[in-house]
């Protein structure tokens, strides 16, 4: 099975003998020091090479500074490998999105139709928020049983449940977004309690802050959300869905907005649970975070640890109830994309969004 590969080192990625070669380079950049703006590749080649059999690559994630040329881009497009690029701080920056290879004009028309008709759009937006909140409740419930002081978690659970009950009632997207915002706020406020007093002291949390992340937990959430977005985008690329036509988020607002819609469903299950686990097991320590440019970011070691846990999580399997066999967490994203296709082609078969049952 092909899988995602995460490139942390700097270097040059090449097409060679019809496969992928990474020629590694040294790190020449120093945090806080201005970029070398001469256009020359940064770092010097170390002579160390890594070969990635192209058939085994499903997508690439570039965390280091990677030089590449048009020949490689063509090759990656032929092999249908999307390349996600992250900046120096680990923020998602861009995706080299190969030419679409699964196209269905009729499906694109149906996608646009469901966007243009308010009732249809709302129905889908509700499904994304509804499933997202359901999965948040799963995380809260899972951790409520595992902490000393249950009260704050129970409180958050009550708020999320109250807000979730409003999802079918709200009649417009902004209100739906507000419902989601309030629920998430209550959810994040329960994180110190879910982490327990010892960890809450080491990883203080004052609610969600982005751009830049204000503390270690926010840095981890931002990084995880970027990975989740990339995973959702890849799932969409493997279907005939157009990633720019979305329902909860405004199309083309930022990024491929349908991936943002899907990520809403999977973030609690994939990102949040990964973070809580990483912290509780001590795989992520305060030393894996550093302050830069007035924000907090994961260090390279921190990112590596996170990505390892992330990759393990995506490949973990669960027995799928309708299919009656084991599927990976990653596959669940794709199956949800298929359910969306079903919804768009058959109104009698509505999309409800993946709901974790564990």
């Amino acid at each position, binding site marked *: 099975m092909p899988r995602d590969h995460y490139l942390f080192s700097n270097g040059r990625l090449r097409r060679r003998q019809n496969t992928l070669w990474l020629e590694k380079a040294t790190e020449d950049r120093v945090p806080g020091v201005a970029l070398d703006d001469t256009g020359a590749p940064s770092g010097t080649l170390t002579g160390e090479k890594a070969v990635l059999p192209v058939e085994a690559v499903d997508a690439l994630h570039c965390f280091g500074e990677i030089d590449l040329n048009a020949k490689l881009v063509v090759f990656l497009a032929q092999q249908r490998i999307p390349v996600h690029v992250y900046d120096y701080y680990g923020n998602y920056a861009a995706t080299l999105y190969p030419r679409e*290879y*699964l*196209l*269905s*004009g*009729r*499906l694109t028309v149906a996608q646009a139709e469901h966007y243009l008709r308010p009732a249809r759009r709302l129905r889908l937006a509700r499904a994304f928020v509804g499933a997202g909140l359901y999965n948040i409740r799963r995380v809260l419930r899972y951790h409520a049983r595992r902490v000393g002081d249950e009260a704050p978690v129970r409180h958050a659970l009550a708020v999320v449940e109250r807000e979730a009950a409003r999802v079918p009632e709200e009649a417009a997207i902004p209100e739906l977004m507000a419902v989601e915002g309030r629920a998430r706020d209550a959810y994040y406020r329960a994180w110190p309690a879910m982490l327990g007093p010892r960890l809450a002291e080491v990883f203080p949390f004052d609610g969600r802050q982005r751009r830049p992340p204000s503390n270690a937990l926010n840095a981890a959430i931002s990084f995880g959300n970027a990975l989740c977005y990339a995973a959702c985008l890849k799932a969409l690329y*493997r279907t*005939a869905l157009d990633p720019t036509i979305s329902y909860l988020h405004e199309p083309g607002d930022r990024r491929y907005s349908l991936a943002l819609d899907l990520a809403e469903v999977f973030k609690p299950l994939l990102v949040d649970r990964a973070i809580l686990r990483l912290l509780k097991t001590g795989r992520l320590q305060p030393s894996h975070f550093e302050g830069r440019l007035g924000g907090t970011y994961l260090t390279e070691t921190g990112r590596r640890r996170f990505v390892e846990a992330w990759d393990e999580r995506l490949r973990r399997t669960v027995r*799928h109830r*309708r*299919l009656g066999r084991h599927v990976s967490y990653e596959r669940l994203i*794709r*199956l*949800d994309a*298929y*359910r969306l*296709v*079903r919804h768009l*082609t*058959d*109104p*009698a078969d509505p999309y409800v969004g993946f709901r974790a049952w564990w």
Partner: protein
Amino acid sequence: MTAPRIGGMLVGYWRVCPRKAWYSMRGLWMEQESEAVALGRLLDRTSYRRRRRPALIEATAPDGTPLVAKLDGVDLRAGVLHETKKGRSCEDAHVWQVRFYLWVLRLAGVTGPGGRPLRGQLDYPALRRTEPVALELEHEGHLAEVVSALAACARQDVPPERHPRRSFCRRCAFEALCYG
């Protein structure tokens, strides 16, 4: 939506599961990742390379639906139309696919040596077996019906029902789309 040109694969799909044919006509393919399909394609590419003459024949069904036959290989000298398959699952669909090709050839006026109609043959290189396929008069009637049904299916807004036998879907590449 105007009916698409109907080919042998769609006829085969229809015999197996109309829903699959509907998805396929909408450009919703699921076989790009199927290992079985990839193996079948490889087998087709690598078997019988000497006598292989791929061909594309077009014709029009009695009800006006445009038809197309993408032939794996025709042996014009012997008057045999070959279709390579990996294994015998869905053999009924394979047989109908070949009958469809023979029908298109007849409608297009293509004949074998001496003006005789071509004979059909299913080749299973992996099994080292071949199976003759003939086109009888009653088959032509059924094929005309299938083509009309496919044309009507293409105009339908919603997909046909799922296959009545869930167990049948187990090995279908479309399973994730229908049940995922």
